[in-house]
Each structure stands twice: as structure tokens, then as C-alpha cells.
């Protein structure tokens, strides 16, 4: 099993943190290996920004994504730049439909999550859109690990925002439960 996930958006959304959280979660799964690499430099401070996470039950050699199973888009700019890395048939394309209008119909597997909209509406703080998105997608990334995710999120955010982030995470998870895409979890190789 090798699963490649790409998180992408613009600098400041906490895209890299999403990858770091998933990577750190794997400390709780002794049989799984993980690598997390990130786009580094000016891109992570405003421009299009990405992090690649690879999860495998084998030793991971090539540490980046070359055939992503899941791509999570959190900005229009990122969609324009990176959608071409998705396989129209195989890659599950998840997108924040507050910020991205649509994904071309050529892409067969998609899941829209209004992360930024919900973060603004429910929590009056778009800073938690990334955590909402993690809640909405964890079952598609690493099924059955929501509790571990909760623990890692709690220890990854500033103490005074912990409660807010956990609420956003739970709201995202609830969104997944009520809106999950027909075919799930994502196919893995």
C-alpha cells in the first residue's frame, strides 16, 4: 500500500501544517511509514503552496508524490497550477468550494467541502478552514483515525485556540459524515 496525498492552497492558510499533522499522526501507527515534504520559500508565504505526504506499509523511498491518490485544493491559484498533476480517473480531487468554483467534469472523483465558508460562518475565523478541511477528509486519507487526529491537532495549535480548532475539526468531520462522496475511501495502490 502506498498512498500519496497533496495539500495545496496559498501561503498562510496552514497548508503545510495540514501535512505536518498527518505526518505526526503516524507516530501512533507502528505499521505505517510516512514522509512529508513541502514547497519551501516564497511560495509558502503568499503564493501557491503545497505539501506532499506519502503513507505506506513499506519503507518509503521516493519521498514525494508522483501519482497522487488524493489532492486537496484550497485556492483557485493552486487548482490552476496543480490540477494537472491529478489523474482524471484515479485521483480523488477534494476542493474548498468557497474559494474554487468548480473542477472540470473530466475529473471523475471529486468531493466539495465548503471549509472556508463554514469557518467564517460558524466560527467567525477563516484561520480554522484548514482544520475543518482535515476533519472533513481524514476518513479519505487514513480511515478510522479521527481520535488520533484530534489529539495531534490539539497539540499542534496554540493553547488559546485549541478549543476553537477542535470544534472546527469536529464540524468538518460531521460534514463528511453527512456529505461523503459515493465512492470512499479513496482507492489506494
Amino acid at each position, binding site marked *: 500500500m502506498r498512498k500519496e496525498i497533496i495539500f495545496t492552497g496559498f501561503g498562510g492558510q496552514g497548508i503545510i501544517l495540514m501535512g505536518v499533522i498527518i505526518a505526526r499522526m503516524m507516530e501512533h501507527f507502528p505499521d505505517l511509514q510516512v514522509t512529508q515534504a*513541502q514547497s519551501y520559500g516564497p511560495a509558502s508565504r503568499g503564493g501557491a503552496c503545497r505539501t506532499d505526504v506519502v503513507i505506506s506499509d513499506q519503507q518509503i523511498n521516493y519521498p514525494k508524490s508522483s501519482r497522487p491518490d488524493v489532492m486537496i485544493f484550497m485556492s483557485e491559484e493552486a487548482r490552476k497550477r496543480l490540477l494537472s498533476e491529478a489523474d482524471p480517473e484515479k485521483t480523488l480531487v477534494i476542493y474548498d468550494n468557497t474559494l474554487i468554483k468548480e473542477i472540470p467534469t473530466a475529473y471523475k472523483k471529486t468531493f466539495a467541502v465548503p471549509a472556508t465558508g463554514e469557518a467564517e460562518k460558524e466560527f467567525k475565523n477563516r484561520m480554522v478552514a484548514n482544520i475543518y478541511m482535515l476533519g472533513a477528509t481524514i476518513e479519505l486519507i487514513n480511515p478510522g483515525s479521527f481520535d488520533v487526529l484530534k489529539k495531534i491537532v490539539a497539540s499542534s495549535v496554540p493553547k488559546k485556540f485549541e478549543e476553537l480548532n477542535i470544534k472546527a475539526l469536529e464540524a468538518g468531520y460531521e460534514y463528511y459524515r453527512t456529505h461523503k462522496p459515493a465512492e470512499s475511501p479513496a482507492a489506494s495502490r
Partner: protein
Amino acid sequence: MKKGRIKVMLGNEACVEAALLAGCRFYGGYPITPATEILEIMSRRLPLVDGLCLQMEDEIAALVAVVGASWGGTKAMTATSGPGFCLMQEAIGLAVAVEAPCVIVNVQRGGPASGQSTSTAQGDFYQARYGSNGDYSLIVLCPSTAQEMFDHTIKAFNLSERFRIPVIILSDEVVGHIREKVFIPDADQLTFVERKVPTVPMEEFVIFKPEENGVPLMPTFNTGYKSPVISQAKSLNGNRGNAKEAVENIRRIVSKIEDHMDEFAEVQVYGDEKAETAFVTFGSVCRAARSAVDMGKEKGLAIRSVEVKTVWPFPDHLVRRALAGAKRIVVAEMNLGMLQREIERVIRQPEIKIELFSKIGGIYPQPQEFLRFLEEKR
């Protein structure tokens, strides 16, 4: 099975973790992308173990401070990248000449000059070996994973103390900034080497007189032993004057390492050891080559991947053995052909052309590209 714990950490973080475990208590540095995390984490961690982390005015001073700390009896290190590594070359020569054990990490980025600060590269391959002036030798280790960043750091400290030399860890941006699981053994599961200090009466002590293994005993400053430590060519007693002894000393600082390469030289082979097609790599590129070997296997292609873990002194006979029987040799590296030149020197078979699969500009090669190279250049 060793006892220890597993933690997801950055390659640069793993380096710090290992250094502290190995007993490093002094860090002299200057921040530079993509090595800065090492200084940052050291500045938080060293004070907690009664160590000292000093940010100096530049990389020249940083390494000179490390040499001083080393003579003060402390295990010491620094970390930098290309432009800082350039500034350190003078002090690398100093560390070699005064035989100060220390560890220098170079997390490579694109060059020349300021180059590409956030991109990966392997262009400092020769600089790590030949950057300073005169005849000398040192040891250069090349990690390709966060785990190897950890393991090689322990090894680097041990070798530096064993041989009394600067040991260079030639990493790169991909390895420094990868996050993955690292196994951290408990301290009692590891072996740590300490420099040998003199115990003879002070008047009998001759500072640069070697022991049988070519390495002199090292007193700590301010312990009473006469310790003239100068950067010039010197006699056994540490002063200038005896030309014959000075020449012998230069030969010795080279042979003390190169006569004992079997203690540390390491070359690994991944894949089919008998395959006629071979990749040769070092550092982070090893990982992409391994994936290419696996993908090739799925397609029925037999490939071996030869990974040079200790690039200097270059392990000629280990590389020759690892490549024995190979008919097609492709060197893959993120520069315009440096390891390639060493392989050409080592494999002198006119019927075998040493091919180069090269990536520069911060592009980390994809496994598919290795296979495409094999197909297209046939």
C-alpha cells in the same frame, strides 16, 4: 532489537537529536537556508543540557569558535549551506591542521554563490573534499533519509573523535526538510567514542607525536599540558622549526585517515546485485533511484543501485566491487557530473561509458525519469 523511541521529525531536527545524544555541547553557527532549523533547535536545546549555542558574526567565526570549543574539551559542531560553507573553508583547513575534532553539516542548496536558497542541489561534492588549501584529507558522509541524518551524525562525532578531524555531513535540502519517522535508540544502546587525552607527566608530553594509529593524544586547554596550537606547518612539539618533522606531519594527517578507511567506508547496493544496469548515486538521489529500481522490477528490468554513503575519501575498491559485472553504468546526481568523474576514475574499462543523468536548478528527479533515461539513451 534496540530499545528506543520513534518520532516523526525533520532531517535537520534528527541531526540535532543525534548530536545532543553524542555529547555535543557547543554549537557555533550563523543562520542560512536550508540549514537554519539546526541552529534554531540547538539554541533551544543546548542551554537545557548546560551547553552553549553561539550565533557568530559569520560562518568564518562560527567554525573558528567550534575549533576553539573543541580544544576546550567539548564536542562541537556547526551547520551551514553553500555560501556559508565557502566562508568556512579556511577554518576547515585550520581544524585539519590543529587536529580539532568537530562536525560540520552542509545542507546543500543551489549554487554557485547565493544560488537558489530554497532549492536542493549536490554541487558541493568536490568542495567538501578539496575546498581548503594544501594537502589534507577528511571524512564526508552523505545521508539520504531523516534516519540517516540521525545515524550519520552519531557516526560523524565518533569518527571526528577517533581521528581528530573535522567530519562533514553532506546533506541536501530534500533530506534536511523531509519529515519522517526516526528511531532514536536509548543512549545505552549506542557506542560513543571519546578523544584520548594524555596521562603522562607534563614534561614528557609531546603534543603532535602520534600514537600507533597515527593520532596524537589531545590535551584540553588549561589543564597544564604545554599546548602550542598553530596553523602553520609544525614540528612534533607544536612549534615551527623542524622541516623534516613538518613534512612527516602533513603525510600523517592524511594517512591517519586513509590507511584506516575500512573502519568507516560504506557503499550500499539496492536491487539486483548482479544486474547489468547500474545506477550510482549519493545523498537524497539514492531514494529516487531505489524507487526506479522497484518500478523497473515491475516491468521486468533488472537494475542495481549503488549508493555511496561515505563519499570522501572516495571508497574506490568498495565502489569497484559494487559495480563488478555491470555493463551499463548511469550516475545520477543533482549537479553537472561530479560523482560521474570519480566513477570514471575508478571504473577504467574502455567498453563501458559512464553515463550521466543530471538534474540541476532545484529539480529533484522522479523515479519515472530514471527509467525514461535508460530507454531514451540506449
